[in-house]
């Protein structure tokens, strides 16, 4: 399940538009309280865990299967008892934010606490050429001016999508907001805030990213940009940002030794 620090809002034209239908229906306590992207993730994650657990056929596997089953329930019904219990509604979340116009696309908000001063984090992020070091869906970002940059992102089947972006708002050590310019393959916008954590315990980094499908392209294609799981993708980006800032590198096991059975 996602942490309470997480919210993902679905704003419109996605392959699964049940969310919208439900949203329009009433202001009463909804039976759907899990956003549809998150539902997909719940279902996929749940199924993976369930399959994984069952395929192992062991006792511990069954626990995984049971938890996976719970996620599937949440994913397919759009209802999470935990969310209901803590009064979180991700399907009907707030829509305000940065600059993807209209009522369509994907918006993800995530946060993480990093044991470094805001100034250090801000400085690293403000050089957009650093972003591909922890945002895995980006191939490169080239800075072309004080406020301008060119982004190349990985797309399905080895292709790429590109756009120019500009910084639309910034406040030293506190905030950076950017958006894509006209002619982008995918309209998008993002912002990052750096806030001192309570009690001097590092810096809370809050990221908000929106993607808007261009005419004719369905949201599902956008989702593929994120390996189908925008929510998890942004969370992992932030986790890697934290690793890089706190330890100097991403934690990894890629390239380590293993037996032939792989």
């Amino acid at each position, binding site marked *: *399940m996602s942490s309470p620090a997480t919210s993902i809002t679905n704003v419109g034209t996605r392959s699964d538009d049940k969310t919208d239908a439900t949203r329009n229906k009433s202001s009463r306590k909804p039976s759907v309280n899990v956003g549809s992207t998150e539902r997909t993730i719940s279902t996929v994650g749940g199924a993976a*865990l369930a399959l994984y657990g069952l395929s192992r056929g062991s006792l511990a596997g069954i626990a995984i299967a049971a938890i996976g089953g719970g*996620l599937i329930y949440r994913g397919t019904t759009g209802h999470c008892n935990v969310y209901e219990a803590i009064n979180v509604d991700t399907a009907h979340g707030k829509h305000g934010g940065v600059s993807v116009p209209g009522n369509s696309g994907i918006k993800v908000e995530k946060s993480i*606490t990093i*044991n470094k001063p805001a100034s250090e984090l801000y400085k690293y992020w403000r050089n957009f050429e650093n972003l591909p070091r922890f945002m895995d869906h980006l191939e490169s970002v080239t800075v072309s001016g004080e406020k301008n940059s060119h982004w190349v992102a990985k797309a399905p089947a080895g292709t790429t999508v590109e756009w120019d972006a500009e910084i639309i708002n910034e406040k030293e050590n506190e905030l950076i907001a950017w958006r894509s310019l006209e002619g982008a393959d995918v309209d998008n916008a993002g912002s990052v805030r750096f806030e001192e954590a309570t009690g001097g315990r590092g810096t809370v980094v809050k990221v908000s990213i929106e993607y808007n499908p261009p005419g004719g392209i369905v949201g599902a294609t956008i989702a593929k940009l994120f390996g189908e799981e925008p929510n998890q993708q942004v969370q992992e980006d932030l986790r890697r940002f934290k690793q890089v800032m*706190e330890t100097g590198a991403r*934690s990894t*096991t*890629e390239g380590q030794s293993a037996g032939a*059975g792989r």
Partner: protein
Amino acid sequence: MKAICWYGKDDVRVDTVPDPKILNQSDAVIKITSTAICGSDLHLLNGYIPTMQKGDILGHEFMGIVEETGSEVKNLKRGDRVVVPFTISCGNCFFCQKEMFSLCDNSNPNAWMAEKLYGYSPSGLFGFSHMMGGYAGGQAEYARVPFADVGPIKVPDELEDEQVLFLSDIFPTAYMAAENCRIEPGDTVAIWGAGPVGLLAIKSAFMLGAGRVISIDSVEERMALARQAGAETLDFNDEEGVLELLKQKTGGRGPDSCLDAVGLEAHGTSMGAIYDRIKATAFLATDRPNALRQAIVGCRKGGTVSVPGVYGGLLDKMPIGAAFNKALTIKMGQTHVQHYLKPLLARIKGGEIDPSFIITHRMRLEDAPEGYASFKHKQDNCIKIVLKPGQSAATTNGH
């Protein structure tokens, strides 16, 4: 190189695998001289820990000689002799700075898996499932050690491998478990399990001021070692029942602290143990918490329950009412190994303890599959096995 790999329940094999490489510049590669098999490895062997994959290199209790270091490593150089903690920790995050090394925020590249089950992820561990990072382990000729400036401790030449090897896990584990008992001078501590962790916990409890230790197990040679370590012993299969016997032995008050050094595969013939077995076979529960239940119900009012024994999933019939109404404190977790390295090395150097008293078997690395079987079935009086990579049978057959 040769490595011991997991292939499934009761299936570990000697494999030839590529030598490990430096992957991050803060890594070191260690040439392993001694590496042990742990009770935790039995949970893997028995298929209780999820997210293992065929071909995973096992082992998390190892030491050796630094072979190679990444460009950012400052504290170690080629040729240093080190013991490696089983917890992988970055040293810089909120948790590492509080010396809660097994809770490191940054060392588990698969944190998302652990978050699905546990809400938040603990640190990466060597050779202990993909949910715990999927790091290749140390039952091998070489191992890659991440955050080499934070984990490994240099050991003096005059101490033998066997005297310091258990700094990697079970001595700190037993010591932290005893610390978690919050012992006051003269306290009575009951310890479930007289395996390597339980035995070292007996010694640790006395070091921390316990007046009496009662050790509970049913394997005779283990109970004999427990008595040698100064404990009284109780057989958990005794018809009178562990709880009744404990009450009698403590003048009707109960032990001040109870320590569960058994974990999720408790045995027994009591009602609870039989119930667990049925539930587990019917796939209705994952862990068999019989020792933990007894520790909670057996503990005196206002006492402390310390749980170094490993649990992974969901428990059934936990006597939470007993814990609540007796106002117990329960402390648990994977060991913050790095926190204990220096003080415990000092105790070994000072001659206060020689943890090698638990070793019953020394073997070649290649003999590990047989070693796993005898350790699991407690054959041949097996209590603790040390594997010696790169050594011939002639020099390892002593026990």
